[in-house]
């Protein structure tokens, strides 16, 4: 079993009485996009700060790329790339100079820096604007440049803190696509924090859900869906009533059923046949127009986890 690229053991960080990160134990394997999901204020950014050695943990320990975050933070920061809460670009400098600066920080030779600037800016369709001051750019362009900066020195691991936060859906989708293609091309491990579940579903091989500093669950999105809810079916039609619901609830293969206007949402136990259920609905006076099989979205899983925590 390969060594995880990130490992935390009972990692905690308190600010006075506030537990920003509380007893976090986590392993992130190399070579994947790991999504760290949670609502605002869940402790995602503090976790990144702890992993980068920018903050000392109150309790517990963590290692990144095999280095201890407490005692070898310089080694970690020398090997990772980061796009934190803000793009962090120098707006009075050109795009080229912004990348060149970070290349110099990582001691890349001049020729390599020039080649890498061309490679990344061309890939992101920003090459023609390389001599613009970044302050003149749109937010989406700046964020793409910030992603390029995080990847500039070929780090094996990058941290992205809510890279599409505050973007409109089109800009977010564009950035997500650019991010996915770059990450695949560079073969880099990504630790991505987000509260955008679509983003996590599209990009992440594994996700961890955090709330109020506590890790609620970890797994790949499919596993989480199965763990938190079974297969689902949606039946569209007319004439569904309380009797239909009562009959369905008596069936052993039905875990949960709800009526929303003209459609029934059914959560099944295992991969059950739909035929007997449809017959039952028809016999109870319902008219079936369409039957759709499906599985819970990551959003359903997320909301279930949040509800469980509340109760």
């Amino acid at each position, binding site marked *: 079993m390969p060594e995880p690229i990130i490992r935390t053991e009972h990692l905690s960080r308190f600010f006075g009485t506030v537990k920003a990160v509380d007893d976090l134990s986590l392993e992130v394997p190399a070579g994947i996009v790991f999504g760290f999901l949670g609502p605002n204020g869940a402790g995602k950014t503090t976790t990144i700060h702890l992993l980068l050695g920018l903050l000392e943990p109150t309790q517990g320990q963590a290692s990144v790329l095999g280095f201890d975050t407490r005692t070898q933070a310089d080694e970690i920061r020398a090997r*990772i790339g980061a796009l934190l809460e803000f793009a*962090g670009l*120098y*707006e009075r400098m050109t795009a080229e100079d912004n990348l060149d*600066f970070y290349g*110099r920080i990582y001691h890349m030779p001049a020729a390599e820096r020039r080649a890498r600037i061309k490679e990344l800016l061309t890939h992101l369709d920003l090459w023609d604007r390389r001599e613009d001051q970044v302050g003149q750019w749109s937010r989406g362009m700046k964020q793409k440049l910030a992603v390029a900066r995080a990847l500039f020195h070929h780090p094996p691991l990058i941290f992205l803190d809510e890279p599409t936060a505050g973007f409109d859906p089109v800009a977010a989708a564009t950035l997500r696509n650019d991010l996915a293609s770059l990450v695949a091309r560079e073969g880099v491990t990504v630790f991505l924090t987000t509260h955008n579940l679509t983003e996590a579903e599209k990009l992440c091989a594994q996700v961890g859900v955090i709330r109020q500093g506590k890790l609620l669950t970890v797994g790949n999105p499919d596993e989480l869906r199965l763990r938190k809810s079974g297969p689902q079916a949606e039946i569209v039609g007319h004439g569904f009533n309380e009797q239909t619901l009562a009959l369905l609830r008596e069936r052993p293969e039905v875990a949960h059923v709800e009526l929303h206007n003209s459609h029934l949402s059914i959560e099944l136990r295992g991969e059950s046949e739909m035929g007997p259920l449809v017959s039952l609905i028809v016999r109870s006076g319902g008219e079936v127009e369409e039957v759709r099989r499906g599985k819970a979205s990551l959003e359903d899983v997320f909301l279930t986890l949040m509800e469980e925590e509340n109760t």
Partner: protein
Amino acid sequence: MSDILTMVWKESKDSLFQGGRSALIRPLLLIGILGIALPWRLGLQWLALTPIVMVLVLYIPFITIISFVGDAIAGERERHTLETLLASRISDRAILLGKIIVTVGYAWGTALIGLLLGLIVANLLKGQGSWEFYTHVDLFLEALALSLLAGLLGVSGGVLISLRSATVRQAQQILSVGTLVLVGGGFLALKAVPAQAISSLSTSQIWLIAMAVIAVLDAILLGVSLVSFQRSRLILS
């Protein structure tokens, strides 16, 4: 050392040369005052580097530091670039020293250009055909050393104030008031010294004592700045 040079490169690009033509207005204005207007007004007094000339040579570059050092530190935090920089491999010390070198260099460069330009202007005004250097070479060298030390004092103090300021504007306001307090305090301290003690010293000796006092203050403030400028503190502030 290469990290410090990287920061110097970045600070030069970001602070000095990227604001277009408007970025040149301030240094040209200061050089104009120090190198043309004042020598023009003071004439031969300028070449003698009288105490008033020395004070002006020290004070005018000091003003430039107020805007630069606030922008270099509080500005990075206000524009959210500092956090990304702290997440990179560059050391706290290289970040701070790079910023200090550029700001002090800028202030000292202004003083040096002002003194050299002032020499030309004063000689042109004299109009006696022969060219003269500053009357007292030791005073000229002391002016250069003093402006360097005063610049370092301003930057070190500015770093400490910027670290505790939420915005560039706040940092600049505190620095402006701090500068006035420093000048006023210096003046009062000078008045407190018995007249006979001062009269027994040459002008050059007085400036040497001032240099020694400023150098001690520089060492203290620079040390405190280096201790204060740490990732863990900056992330939490």
